[in-house]
């Protein structure tokens, strides 16, 4: 009898993990990833394409010794080829995932019956 109860509990726990824990896990993983990513996380080491890769077409003040960074100015990100800008690090994770992670199992299933 005890084995049966344990199996049911385990089964329910597995279903719960597949939904809520997944959402929680996504949010936590994204936050953790953002914390350890370098300031230039998106294309570090990748060459710029097209004319931007050619010295004649590159913006004149480019300092070749630095990697470009995504800076932030005028309420927008921009690519700073000098690498001197303060890097922009977007918030971690998907906001919708964060909101779902705060729901109870009952609330989650009530609002999102198909996951």
């Amino acid at each position, binding site marked *: 009898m005890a084995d049966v109860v344990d199996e049911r509990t385990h089964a329910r726990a597995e279903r719960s993990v597949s939904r809520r824990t997944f959402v929680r896990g996504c949010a936590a993983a994204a936050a953790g990833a953002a914390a350890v990513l370098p300031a*230039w996380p*998106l*294309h570090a080491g990748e060459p*710029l*394409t*097209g*004319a*931007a890769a*050619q010295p*004649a*077409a*590159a*913006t*004149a*003040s480019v300092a070749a010794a630095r990697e*470009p960074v*995504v*800076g*932030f*100015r*005028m*309420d*927008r*990100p*921009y*690519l*700073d*080829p*000098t690498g001197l*800008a*303060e*890097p*922009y*690090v*977007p*918030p*971690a994770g998907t*906001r*919708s995932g*964060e909101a779902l992670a705060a729901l109870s199992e009952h609330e989650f299933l009530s609002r999102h019956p198909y996951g």
Partner: protein
Amino acid sequence: MVDFSKDPTARGFYAPERFESSVFDCEVSGEIPRSMNGAFVRVGTEWLYPPRFPDDAIFNADGFAGMFRFKNGVVDFTGRWVRTARWENDTAAQRQLYGYYRNPFTDDPSIREQTIAQPYLRTLANTNIIAHAGKLFAMKEDGPPYELDPRTLATRGPMTFGGKYRSQTFSAHPKIDPLSGEMICYGYEATGLASNDIYLYTVDKAGEVTREVRFKAPYVSMIHDIALTQRHIVFPVFAFTTSLERLKAGKVHWAWDARLPTYVGILPRDGGAADVRWFKGPTRSIVHTFNARTEGSKVVLESPVTETNPFPFFPPDPGHADPASARHGTNIRRHTFELDSRGEGYTEEILHAQSINGLGRIDDRYISLPNRYAYSGFTDPARPFDVARAGNLRGRVTNCYGRFDLHTGATSAYFAGVTHSLNEPVFVPRSPGSPEGDGYLIGVANNLAEMRSELVIADAANLAAGDVARVILPFRLGAQVHGNWIPEDRLAFA
């Protein structure tokens, strides 16, 4: 196939949206003032296809117009591409054909010959949107304006003003005289790439070109904005410059050259090319103006002014950078030009030392007339910011609107929220006859945590009280450059 993975700025809140939208009876918090009938129209940048070069200027994205239509306390929203010739060509090719910002030499070989010969065909109409003579049009300073249907924002096509507007380019900041209803507009680089020709036009309130003046700038420069008085037109020429050699070398259009002086041209409104008087001063950036007025023999200009390059995506060439003595930050300054003087100098005063973001506005009913209040967004680093939910932008986003009293030096501020970044504010009078400053300050706030945009409405005389109302969109809006309030009686909205 569309692939934005090579554009590292197209991420998170700033990822392209690329869809047109209609939202009926938008979600609202608070209560929309019943007196606000008309539309807040805005235009900005949205990439249809990824840029050819990832370090291109943000001003090189396609024009996307938005309209918040206010009627009896209800707000509808419409968002549409400005379908320029360039947008149509890219759509047909299913890829980005156009190269660096205002540099046709970097275009796809399939179009390059034509765009070099006719660079105005590259315009994106992404910078400003205004109404005049019953027409709504979006514009950018490198080509003709594009007329839009005020009911749907559908693109009607480029405007020619009956063939009487002959400049290849049209300003992003024409000025409408509130007394005469005339539009004063102009084009710089009027005869082609890197030319220093300026063509100035008067368009009457019926939309007819009534006057043209052609003259030359001291050097080719970004003349993004002008100022108007009842007697004069004021043209700032400053240190963003270009040349055909630069463009042929494949660079972005503008370079900041801190060696260049500022020139300010003053032309009597009834004068000709020979009547332009150029004043000369130290290196400044005067991208936008607040207003100007003529007082006897003096012309007074009030503007957001920077001593250094305000745009990192238009960097200096080697050896032309700002000196260490130049002060960073933009603040509100007054320049006074004595027309009876023999010298070429002028005076400069700092009216508000506080740093602002450079997108300055006034109550547009006072354009060319004496006025008291200036409005601008600014960054208040002392305000709270939720870094965990909105990114490492503490002290880096425009989180406040300010009302700056040009007479007393007083400042009042509106704070948008701990996860918000504000676009340019616009003043809306409470009623057509209300005094200056009596009305609302409105603008789009991007909620970086909730991934949506909100139009905030605050009482301009009581900014510290916060919102009167917010119109909440269920999605992000692309970057706005400029917007304007169009009263109900100015356009055929229905």
